[in-house]
């Protein structure tokens, strides 16, 4: 199959493709949402030394494994982007499928954690620490699920050789989900104790 690249129009002022520019603005908004939550949590945590007792019940091992899982999925999606650049679309689609599988593993482990906590009688209503915990990790998990759907949609296009620039955009979103978890893990699992 012969493949002809079609240049994406760029914004004159920024020399950036419109899609990538729009994605960066979107990510900036996401950053403020999670940053605001993290700022609230840090301030309340400094005020409540007793949260250390509650934090002792989180499964830090599961959180650590999930960090490895997300870092690995970030690797596979950026490798997919490189494969697109190299013109190897089939390899890119396979790497995206691997990203979806690894991302799904994150959701499975998170579900296991929630089940463990709820069976121990811990819910968002238990106290303010657990309200923050479920809100921040739950909102993050929703972003993971949204990312998995987005990657799947883009992957279908890549298999047909269509809209290849979207691999970079969906990758940017997935890396942000990773960056947010990089802060949530020490915040809720390591430093809280």
């Amino acid at each position, binding site marked *: 199959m012969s*493949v002809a690249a079609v240049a994406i129009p760029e914004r004159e002022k920024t020399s950036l493709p419109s899609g990538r520019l729009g994605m960066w*603005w979107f990510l900036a908004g996401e950053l403020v949402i999670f940053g605001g939550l993290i700022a609230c949590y840090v301030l*309340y945590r400094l005020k409540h030394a007793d949260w250390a007792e509650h934090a002792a019940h989180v499964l830090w091992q599961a959180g650590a494994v999930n960090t490895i899982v997300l870092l690995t999925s970030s690797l596979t999606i950026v490798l997919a982007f490189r494969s697109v650049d190299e013109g190897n679309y089939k390899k890119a689609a396979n790497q995206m499928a691997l990203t979806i599988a690894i991302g799904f593993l994150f959701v499975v482990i998170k579900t296991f954690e929630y089940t463990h906590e709820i069976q121990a009688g811990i819910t968002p209503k238990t106290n303010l620490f657990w309200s923050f915990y479920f809100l921040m990790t739950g909102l993050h998990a929703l972003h993971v699920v949204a990312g998995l759907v987005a990657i799947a949609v883009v992957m279908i296009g890549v298999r047909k050789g269509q809209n290849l620039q979207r691999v970079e955009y969906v990758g940017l979103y997935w890396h942000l989900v990773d960056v947010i978890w990089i802060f949530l893990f020490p915040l809720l699992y390591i430093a809280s104790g």
Partner: protein
Amino acid sequence: MVTPHVSEEKHHHPNYVAIWAVLLALLLAGIVVGNVQSPVLGAALVFGVAGVKAYIVAANYMHLKYEPLFVKLIVGSALACIVLVLIGLIPDVVYVYGD
């Protein structure tokens, strides 16, 4: 014939696997320093390591270091907003709710 929509610009591709190995090493380092005796020092070290990891992901996987100044300003403005939220919340948490 399929004509894929792909930008003609050349992207930089550092050694992604080596970067992934560094991130895993930093994860281990973060867990280790989180167990130091001083809680304040431990928290500072843990967040320091997290900051380095986030920078590595943003700079290399998100290619932020190759982006033009405009993109860096977008990210910087978001981070500035977070700092403003943090400062704005201090009186509410420390002087109202806490006491």
